[in-house]
């Protein structure tokens, strides 16, 4: 007997609570607006997850967790061929690429990223099928749902607060502060923060920066809010806002216009004066 419904009526939090309390085993499929998420549980614990086209292969997870470089991951994927995740994990460990802890952490991160995304879904058909389990070759790392539910609820709250702080992402751009004070010294930035930083430009709206980096509204809000607090960036009005900025281009960030001769000449004059 399957559990069917829509997140509009029975939220992600409620679903996970049910799975946890009833110690359910099986597959939960949620059909979101853009992606389909699949979560596998064994006796009430999350053991495997995938979303959209990314079916969560080990090399992918290690890449996303920063344990492998893009080059390494690609090489491994072409070479590994039909190898199962378990075999691949053993091979990578014995070749000294990664440790067992790296693998466990990456698999966990992969699952948690997916499940936390689901907390922001307000609608979507779901179906729970009892006793369906991921194929044997997948590395299953059981995760307790209690903490996930608590963290997920905390994020919903945080996300609502962030939304109040930064309500509008589509008509606001970022620029670096003119006088970043001493707080900037030795600031530690995450990979995601650097990704955002490298797109900061009065031509790019926050939304476009998010799209170019594959971030959702919550992720970009959180990063931008943090950087605003640190005094690294300020909100700005996007340049050329009147003109329709986003075309069909992937990512949506506008290509910078060709730099003019006069710009290079001004740079030369300035640097000579330093």
């Amino acid at each position, binding site marked *: 007997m399957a559990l069917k419904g829509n997140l509009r009526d029975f939220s992600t939090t409620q679903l996970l609570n049910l799975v946890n309390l009833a110690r359910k085993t099986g597959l939960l499929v949620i059909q979101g607006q853009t992606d389909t998420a699949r979560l596998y549980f064994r006796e009430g614990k999350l053991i495997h997850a995938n979303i959209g086209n990314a079916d969560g292969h080990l090399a992918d997870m290690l890449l996303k967790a*920063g*344990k*492998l*470089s*893009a*080059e390494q991951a690609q090489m491994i994927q072409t070479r590994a061929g039909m190898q199962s995740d378990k075999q691949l994990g053993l091979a990578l460990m014995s070749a000294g690429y990664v440790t067992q802890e790296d693998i466990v952490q990456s698999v966990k991160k992969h699952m948690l990223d997916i499940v936390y995304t689901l907390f922001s879904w307000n609608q979507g058909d779901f179906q729970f099928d009892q006793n369906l389990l991921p194929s044997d070759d997948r590395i299953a790392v059981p995760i307790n749902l209690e903490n996930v539910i608590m963290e997920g609820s905390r994020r919903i709250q945080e996300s609502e607060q962030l939304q109040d702080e930064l309500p509008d992402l589509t008509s606001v751009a970022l*620029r*670096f502060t*003119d006088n*970043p004070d*001493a707080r*900037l*010294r*030795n*600031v*530690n*930035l*995450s*990979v995601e923060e*650097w*990704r955002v*930083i*490298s*797109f900061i*430009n*009065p031509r790019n709206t926050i939304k476009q920066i998010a799209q170019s980096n594959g971030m959702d509204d919550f992720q970009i809000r959180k990063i931008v809010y943090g950087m605003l607090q640190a005094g*690294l960036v300020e909100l700005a009005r996007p*340049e050329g806002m009147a003109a329709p900025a986003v075309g069909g281009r992937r990512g949506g960030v506008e*290509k*910078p216009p060709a*730099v003019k*001769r006069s*710009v*290079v*000449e*001004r*740079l*030369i004059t*300035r*640097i*000579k004066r*330093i």
Partner: protein
Amino acid sequence: MQTVKMVITGPFSAGKTEFIRSISEIDVVSTERKISSEAERVKEATTVAMDFGRITVDEDLVLYLFGTPGQRRFDFMWEILSEGMLGFIVLIDSVRSETFREAKHILEIFRSYAPTPYVVAANKQDLPDAWSPEDLRIALKIDSNVKVLSCVATEKEHVKNVLLELLYSILEGMEEGT
């Protein structure tokens, strides 16, 4: 306001941080730490060592300098950083020949991202064991139309000179283009 960007790349310890620090008007935002405590080592696993500096021309124009991340596993950021760059500088640690192959590799990767002008800076020329720019040009097989410049990243005048030479190369490229 217009912002333009240059990327400073090169192997670990070639002098990227030093280079940007010598010329930037803001404290270089560097995430690189001396590994001391266990806590910091853990932190290092999650942050990227990369530098970021700024030179304001006037209220309409700002130049940003981006140093590429120090850790190899953040190589995927190179392409992101190279997006829209005006030009790039490859710094070479002229005293450590074991890093030359890596330097050449980095140079080729950046060249493949964009057909923007670049210069090679033979850094640490103040050290007695430094290979000369001429020898480095041969050792790294640098095209004859690409400048290989002598550099001491701790000296502001040297850094200025490298940036200016890159800007001159950019101007020349524009002339050819039109």
